[in-house]
């Protein structure tokens, strides 16, 4: 059972949250996420969910209250964007380090300054090493599907790590697209009931959470977290398989678009991958063997699998919608290049930083990237390893 709807990404995300029916949602409004908590508040006040909504006075408190609720044994969610995510920063690490399976939609937006409310990935990319699982979506359908799967991924006993469900600000969050919603009871059955192992609320078995953990044990706890991260890939695939049975929609660690026989390819994540598909189609019509790798699971990074998928290419361009100011390229580039190096793959990899602060990326611009790749293949030289695409001089 599913229903065809035409909704904005934010509306879809609040529908996913309604269907998940978390015990607690603690959140703060921030553009472009606001509509999620706004719509969800209406569900709460209309009695459509069992959720206690905690309208905090800041994102720091939103994440803090979510941690308190999750540690208490509740299925707890929040949602944020941009500077809101930045304000949560400290507590992100506490959530993952405490192994709390919180699910948080993040509506990706540029970080200040100067202030800009539009889409880029600076916010989530900055939090990429906070111990959270990160899923990215091409469109509202994927964002919805990821949110529902995230609950199951996070709560898996071999994982117990929080997940950020990323969705491009405005481009997805504020655009109406048509998609399928699952039936409420199917989502409920899929996510099941959450039973925390050591909740604060269990009076018979009091537990101390978040102690001072010094040189003698902190490292061991971080090692446990690293092991859990290792487990994520398998669990993501298991959950995807189960979800496919329910929805008919297929998910993996990443999507390969016309990559099989491709000679040149782009690696990207988020809504741009949709536009890139059109570029690939156009180029294919002109005889260019173009392909695309769309990353869905970015943290933990499926290095081996991605490298394997790219290993037979001649050249690859990694697209980053975030700057690191390292002068060595964006975050995705660093990961992909390292993965290719480990594989010993003979593939030239270059990087394009694009779309900062909501700068539009047109089909032609993506096509130009493929043309650059062809030239690299032809001349066997890389002139600029890292380029900024679509910026004026």
């Amino acid at each position, binding site marked *: 059972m599913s229903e*065809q*709807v*035409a909704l904005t990404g934010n509306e879809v995300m609040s529908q996913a949250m309604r269907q998940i029916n978390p015990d607690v949602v603690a959140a703060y409004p921030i553009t*472009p996420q606001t509509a999620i908590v706004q719509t969800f508040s209406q569900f709460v006040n209309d009695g459509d969910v069992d959720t206690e909504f905690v309208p905090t006075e800041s994102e720091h408190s939103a994440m803090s209250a979510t941690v308190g609720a999750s540690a208490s044994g509740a299925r707890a969610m929040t949602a944020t964007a941009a500077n809101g995510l930045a304000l949560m920063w400290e507590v992100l690490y506490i959530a993952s380090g405490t192994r709390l399976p919180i699910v948080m939609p993040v509506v990706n937006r540029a970080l200040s300054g100067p202030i800009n*409310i*539009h889409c880029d990935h600076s916010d989530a990319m900055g939090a990429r090493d906070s111990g959270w699982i990160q899923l990215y979506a*091409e*469109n509202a359908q994927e964002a919805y599907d990821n949110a529902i799967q995230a609950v199951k991924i996070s709560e898996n006993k071999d994982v117990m790590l929080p997940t950020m469900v990323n969705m*491009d600000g*405005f*481009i*997805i969050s*504020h*655009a*109406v*697209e*048509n998609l399928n919603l699952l039936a409420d009871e199917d989502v409920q059955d899929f996510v099941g009931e959450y039973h925390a192992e050591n909740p604060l609320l269990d009076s018979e078995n009091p537990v101390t959470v978040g102690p001072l953990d010094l040189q003698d044990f902190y490292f061991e706890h971080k090692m446990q977290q690293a092991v859990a991260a290792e487990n994520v890939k398998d669990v993501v695939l298991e959950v995807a398989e189960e979800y496919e049975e329910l929805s008919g929609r297929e998910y993996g660690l990443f999507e390969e678009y016309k990559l099989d026989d491709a000679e040149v390819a782009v690696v990207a994540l988020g*809504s*741009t*991958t*949709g*536009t890139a*598909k*059109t570029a690939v189609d156009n180029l294919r019509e002109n005889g260019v063997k173009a392909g695309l790798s769309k990353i869905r699971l970015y943290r933990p990074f499926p290095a081996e699998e991605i490298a394997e998928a790219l290993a037979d290419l001649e050249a690859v361009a990694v697209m980053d919608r975030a700057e690191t100011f390292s002068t060595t390229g964006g975050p995705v580039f660093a990961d992909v290049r390292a993965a290719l190096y480990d594989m010993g793959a003979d593939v030239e990899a270059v990087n394009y930083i694009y779309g900062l602060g909501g700068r*539009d*990326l*047109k*089909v032609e611009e993506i096509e130009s990237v493929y043309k650059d790749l062809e030239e690299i293949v032809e001349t066997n030289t890389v002139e600029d390893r890292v380029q900024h695409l679509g910026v004026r001089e």
Partner: protein
Amino acid sequence: MASLTEVRWHGRGGQGGKTASILLGKVAAKSGKNIQAFPEYGPERMGAPVLAYNRISEDEITLHCQVTEPSIVAVLDPTLLDVVDITEGVPADGTIVVNSKEDAKTIKEKLDFEGDVWTVDAYGVAEKEIGRPFPNTPMLGGLMKATGLIEFDKFLAGIETELEKKFAHKPEVIEKNLAAIKRAYQEVAN
């Protein structure tokens, strides 16, 4: 994506341009098409010129870039013609529908546009049918006639469903809007 149609809405903040694009998208989706409807967001407030877009296609739409070459343009306020270039990017065989009391020929000349130009007095229609000058629903009616994007009967049925969701507690609003759409459909001319 041969079947892709792109629409650009010009309005003023508060006029319902965004709502018009969403309604169009939703109704088109109901009729089995793939759609996108999205406004251009900025810090603009009430009165400022604003934009909204639609993509409508028989095929899956994966594009997530801005619409730069819309084949259809709807203008919700006649005074916008003096403020923004509403023909920007519109191909020569495109269609432009303008809320204006003037006839299509006059507007076509004013715009210096080769393509199909239609006008409808959306404010007048709205005043008559709704009692207030909301140009967005009449413009949808005009757009349907001018472009044939969706079969009009199907469109009417679809819009009724959407309005029912929006105005569940105000059935009279639904009736008035439907009447405005129908009147604009009749009155729009090229």
